[in-house]
């Protein structure tokens, strides 16, 4: 009888054989080809999903990466805080542009490009490239378009080539955010000759191609990109947009488990991580094997938002009662272990506040007053409501929710806690289906008016409390085009007063960013986009 090639005996033998092969010992100390010292390994829980930060759906990690790969015309300067630095929102300087002149009527910006600026492929940066890139920002269907509109940059006619290395930007009105918008992560300057080769009639701005390829001229070039897994960068030695980076090679790797990231840093296998959990940071700092740079995220705020368009939170007295009932200090301690800056408990008596936002507001706990306020609002016996938060916020929001539930229970409000998956939370937030919830926001341009424009006006998702105040809209519109500095300050103060008076949302605190690094790493800079700027890092 002919035998079947695979019989019992061979099957068993091959299975056992394969198993045995896998149990061979792991060799220690295998030689690594790359020079470890000149390589930076960054680990993060997030993931880069596109190389073009303007793509709809791009992640924060994608913005961060693009800041190292693409140049913008302008950039924010930095100022030192102790051993590290933070971005300076008041100081804009050239990156790809060498200088920028503003006309007397503040309606024309003239930008002069650097002489020695080259793209990654070695070709010189021309005014045509810049014109094309700016046109792309306002024409292509992307995240850049709405961002640029906040600086009154809306049509290609506003950008004019005024010389081989000169670009002129005209504004319909003097807009205080026009120049800052040129420094935003979305304002990438693209090698247009290269990008155009990959443009099609359906996709004139090469958006498809640029998702997985780059046409850039920044400090680093992309060597290898595996979406959701890792990105490898190598230094671009022809870069002159700032001080030449120390590291020759950057590996940015996605490591979803926070505890694993903490372990990697502590054992010295990774060099920098900025998204660890608070309890890991406390433990790391106790053991003292790593270096921790803690900086308050100055353009960021955690808050409690109400839906101000539906009962009971459409009643300002109810909102005020809740603002009086909250145990701010306990929330701050339990939720983020006090690692941040409180945005409550300010004393404004007898003086106007500085025209800044976010800043501490004059709210503090007073349960007796809260009860009276609630009675005045027509709810002497309280009411039932739901407090929601997103799953990704669990570590901070869970203790917060419990404390809020308890505190509001004291004034008769029964709170049900609803923890929602992120996509569901975001959808309900955008559809105005959340009555009372917590979230954290970060504005990229640290101008008080910009924050009010973004978070307290218009029917859009970032108007967290769905607030509709004609007075606020009027103030924001005025401040936006205000050229008189004193008037601008007065308008910002009026906005702050209105916020405190109407309590559309309650500011809680600004969390810290904790950059945990190996001890020999220096030069960390906190950036407003809350990602690692690889260009400033070095090994001592």
């Amino acid at each position, binding site marked *: 009888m*002919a035998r*079947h090639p695979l*019989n*019992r005996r061979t*099957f*068993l033998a091959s*299975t056992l054989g*394969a*198993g*045995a092969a*896998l*149990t*061979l010992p*792991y*060799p220690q100390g*295998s030689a*690594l*080809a*790359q020079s470890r010292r000149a390589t930076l390994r960054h*680990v993060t829980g997030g*993931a880069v*999903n*596109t190389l073009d930060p303007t*793509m*709809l*759906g791009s992640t924060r990690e994608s913005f961060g990466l693009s800041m190292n790969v693409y140049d913008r015309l302008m950039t924010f300067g930095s100022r030192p805080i102790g051993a590290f630095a933070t971005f300076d929102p008041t100081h804009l300087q050239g990156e790809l542009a060498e200088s920028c002149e503003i006309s007397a009527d503040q309606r024309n910006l003239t930008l002069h490009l650097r002489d020695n600026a080259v793209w990654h492929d070695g070709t010189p940066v021309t005014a045509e490239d810049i014109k094309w890139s700016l046109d792309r920002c306002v024409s292509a*269907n992307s*995240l850049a378009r*709405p*961002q640029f509109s906040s600086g009154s940059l809306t049509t290609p006619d506003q950008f004019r080539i005024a010389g081989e290395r000169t670009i002129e930007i005209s504004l319909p009105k003097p807009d205080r955010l026009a120049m800052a918008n040129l420094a935003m992560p*979305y304002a990438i300057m693209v090698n247009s000759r290269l990008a155009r080769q990959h443009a099609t009639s359906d996709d004139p701005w090469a958006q498809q191609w640029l*998702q*997985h390829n780059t046409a850039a001229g920044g400090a680093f070039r992309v060597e290898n990109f*595996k*979406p*959701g897994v*890792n990105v490898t960068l190598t230094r671009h030695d022809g870069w002159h947009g700032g001080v030449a980076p120390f590291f020759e090679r950057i*590996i940015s*790797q996605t*490591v*979803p*488990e926070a505890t*694993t990231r903490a*372990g*990697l840093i502590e*054992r010295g*296998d990774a060099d920098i991580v900025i998204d660890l959990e608070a309890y890991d940071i406390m433990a790391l700092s106790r053991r003292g094997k790593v270096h921790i740079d803690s900086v308050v995220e100055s353009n960021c705020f955690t808050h409690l938002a109400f839906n101000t368009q539906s009962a009971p939170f459409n009643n300002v007295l109810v909102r005020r009662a809740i603002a009086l009932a909250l145990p701010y200090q306990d929330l701050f301690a339990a939720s983020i272990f006090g690692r941040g800056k409180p945005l409550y408990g300010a004393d404004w008596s007898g003086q106007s506040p500085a025209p800044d936002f976010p800043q501490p507001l004059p709210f503090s706990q007073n349960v007796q007053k809260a009860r009276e306020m609630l009675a005045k609002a027509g709810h002497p016996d309280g009411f039932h409501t739901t407090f929601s938060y997103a799953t990704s916020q669990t570590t901070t929001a869970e203790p917060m929710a419990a404390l809020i539930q308890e505190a509001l229970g004291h004034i008769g409000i029964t709170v049900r806690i609803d923890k929602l*998956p*992120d*996509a*569901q939370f*975001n*959808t*309900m*937030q*955008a*559809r105005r289906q959340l009555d009372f919830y917590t979230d954290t926001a970060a504005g990229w341009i640290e101008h008080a008016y910009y924050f009010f424009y973004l978070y307290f006006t218009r029917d*859009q*998702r*970032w108007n967290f409390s769905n607030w509709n105040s004609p007075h606020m809209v009027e103030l924001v519109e005025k401040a936006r085009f205000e050229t008189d500095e004193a008037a601008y300050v007065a308008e910002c103060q009026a906005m702050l007063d209105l916020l405190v008076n109407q309590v559309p949302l309650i500011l809680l605190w600004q969390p810290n960013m904790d950059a945990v690094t190996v001890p020999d790493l220096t030069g960390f800079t906190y950036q407003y986009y809350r990602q690692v700027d690889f260009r400033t890092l070095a090994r001592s």
Partner: protein
Amino acid sequence: MSAEKHLLPPLVRRIGLRLGAALPALFCVILFTFIMMRVLPGDPAVYFASGPNAGQAEIQELRHKMGLDAPMPVQLLHYLENLATGDLGRSLTTGQSVAQDMHERLPASLELTLTALAFSLLISLPLGLTAAWWSGSKYDQFVRAFCSACFCIPPFVSGILLVYVFYYWLGVAPDPTGRINIFLPQPPRLTGLLLIDSALAGDWTAWHEAAGQLVLPAMTMALFVIAPLTRMTRAAVISVLGADYIRTARAMGLPTWRIMIVYTLRNALMPVLTTVGIVFSTMMGANVLVEKIFSWPGVASYALDALVSSDYAPVQGFILLMACLFILVNLVIDLLLGVLDPRVSVE
């Protein structure tokens, strides 16, 4: 030679029949996941159009781009149409086509699961066999306790524990991030299974690195399935030990090892193999926590990320892939059962 001719057509016919019978099930899976994803609360357009200043217009634009503004039956038709051409849609999470993501990630999951399965078989077959041989003894009790302990510890606990002990504390394991040391170049891709690719390329450094990275996650997964496999082996072996031919073999004074391996284990393998099929399919889909802990770029963690952000295409693609794998694995197991016991292949 003539026997082979008779053997082949029924085998091919069996495979064809089995695959054909699976088609309606596959269609149901497609329909079910399609509807389920859309019934779940969470709008992918809102989740992804989330840059600062992105408003209603951007959300609408994204909905249109994704085809979500069409009625559901139309969306389903489009989806089926695309499926027919092998297009599984695009992932917003990675910005790539789902087919490409699967192509890159499936080998990672397969390699991990197969290794874990090999580990668990290496441990549970001898354990089950010996426990049955000396059933009722202290040793048997010990094996039972060991299995219960393994089964009680969920993989995310044992995974973190193993990482803590072997990487963080003892420092003998490589860092638990991915399939190969990040500083090493990957071997050229042929099969996507790093052990095979690096062996084919003759790159033994990469082979050892990849094998080293596999040990902890595979052990984590193996620990969890040791219990069902061991118990199943033990039960099967006990039932075989009572058979006449074993008594005969003993009476004829055959050496113990021969009775154990050749006459007992071989005949007890049938139910074990069936369990292996089920265990393998479960491991493929359920190893998401292990993939997360070890930053393993596999399909399960990919699908979970997509699910959290309501990214429809990857989740649908993943479930479809799992359904296909399940069908294939069952088919392969069936054919192997035929190899072990020729009676099975008689229809």
